[in-house]
């Protein structure tokens, strides 16, 4: 059990957005959270990362209560992949990924040889090691997103929480990022992500959580949760889930249907 919530109430201040959520994330598993804007996905993620205190109930990482852990201890258990924004100082990709080693370094320390090697191999795993010395501002949005995932890998945390890793990316870059996420599973890393595109969940998720107004609408295996009726209820529009034969393998795809 890499990351778990037990009877979790989460929200800001006194205002609970979600109540009594139970959630476990196992090693080598991808759990995808879907929900309309304002459903509480970001608030839930911030709570699971210990960035926002749980209003009630508990969050555990590697079996330990987040309450009892320091920031650095939490960082060694759960890594965070934010949406790639353009507002960074112009670090090189290697320097950015080396910042993933912070929780393993003393207050006055700088990354050493081993840290640099770990950062470099994380870039290699994301297939962008050739860009290591390029400034962040000169790479594409997809490459920046892959670098942020590489930074999460460099933390050596067993769970990674990703906030809309495919947002603001073009079609090709979305696919690249999803492919790399699917690969993390084989390394035994637990991935929790949210997305606005149910097709992405159909592509990578083992399990799915449908969240509406902070409450879980459905939680379970992706194949049983991601159905036309469920998605229709979730988004308030008519959605059909259909099967598509792509070169011999059957893929499930999601299409909104017009009218009634």
């Amino acid at each position: 059990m890499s990351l778990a919530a037990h009877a979790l109430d989460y929200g800001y201040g006194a205002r609970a957005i979600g109540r009594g959520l139970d959630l476990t994330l196992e090693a080598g598993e991808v759990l995808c959270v879907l929900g309309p804007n304002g459903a509480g996905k970001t608030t839930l993620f911030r709570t699971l990362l210990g960035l926002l205190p749980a209003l009630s109930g508990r969050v555990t990482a590697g079996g330990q209560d987040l309450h009892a852990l320091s920031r650095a201890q939490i960082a060694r258990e759960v890594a965070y992949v934010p949406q790639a924004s353009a507002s960074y100082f112009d670090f090189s990709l290697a320097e950015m990924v080396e910042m993933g080693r912070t929780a393993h370094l003393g207050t006055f320390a700088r990354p050493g040889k081993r840290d640099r090697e770990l950062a470099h191999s994380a870039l290699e795993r994301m297939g962008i090691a050739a860009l290591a010395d390029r400034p962040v501002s000169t790479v594409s949005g997809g490459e920046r997103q892959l670098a942020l995932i590489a930074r999460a890998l460099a933390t050596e945390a067993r769970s990674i929480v990703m906030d809309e890793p495919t947002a603001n990316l073009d079609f090709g870059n979305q696919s690249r990022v999803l492919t790399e996420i699917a690969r993390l599973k084989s390394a035994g890393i637990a991935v929790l992500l949210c997305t606005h595109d149910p097709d992405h969940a159909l592509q990578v998720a083992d399990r799915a959580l449908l969240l509406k107004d902070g409450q879980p609408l459905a939680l379970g295996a992706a194949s049983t949760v991601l159905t036309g009726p469920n998605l229709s209820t979730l988004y308030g529009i008519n959605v059909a889930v259909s099967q598509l034969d792509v070169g011999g393998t059957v893929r499930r795809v999601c299409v909104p249907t017009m009218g009634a």
Partner: protein
Amino acid sequence: MRALHLRESTPIVSRARFPAWLAGSAIVLATVVAISMGVGSFPVPPGDVARVLWASLTGVDAGVADNVRAVVLQVRGPRVVAALAVGAALAAAGASYQNMFRNPLVSPDILGVSGGCALGAVTGILFSLPIAAIQALSFAGGLGAVGLVLAIGAWIRGHDRVLTLVLTGVVVGSLFGAGIAFAKYVADPYNQLPAITFWLLGSFSGVLPRDLVYALPLIAVGFVPLVLMRWRINLLSLPDDEARALGVDVGKLRLVIIVAATLVTSAGVAIAGVIGWVGLVVPHAARLLVGAEFARVLPVSALLGAAFMLLVDTLCRTIARTELPPGVITALVGTPVFIVLLAATFRKAR
């Protein structure tokens, strides 16, 4: 679009080039020191400057005339040391503020820190306090200014952080300016007013060794956390959530660095008064040379800041019959750089 293309065509190997730029900055600094010690109304050839300095380090006889020795060690020496210290201090503080506020446009003067320091010091002069108390008030004023700018910025929560910070700094700075104007109005025109005016214009001409005795240790103390945490400070340039998720106690680290940078600034202001633009221009130049990583930006900023300040002061005392205030020359250099940076920032954000 053209700028982007230009950047893409220049491969960045700043990490590998860092030792070369560091050595280059040190050589520039040494050259400026040698020139500055030599030029003036009583010129001293570089060879004699070197002999006097070597003699004062080793204790052997310099073999130069006593008046040459006096010019180098007593007249120009303290002034050179003061300019070096103030330049290094303002540039290092500027680099730290820029990193913390994720913003290449902030600097001690634009954030209102220098104004706060000046108001604190002017208040001290007004009440005829001892120099240590003036120093302490200057520090408190600087800290108050940065706190005020941060608090107002957080309260406004504009979606354009750059603009919010710059405008808030201007507003807070003008508030302190009003306080300073009031202090000048009520000051004793024979004793206090000249001292206040001197502070506000900024100058190295009246630097006394006793000013350095107080201020240099404070600058050194402020530098300690900046140097020790020079890598970790990079994390402050990330959005708070990211830095915290990477394992940094952001609030604590930011507080330490703000206090350190403000201490360094106020000690610099205590030596030479308010000198603008150094803290903005020099870190920017350093980043152009060695990239954004703070562990590289800090030493190069400090060396280049020291060299720049000394060069400016040397010009101030040599180009005209009367001394020019250094702030005039730094503003001539700084204003265009600021405008170019502002344009680049907004273009990038678009």
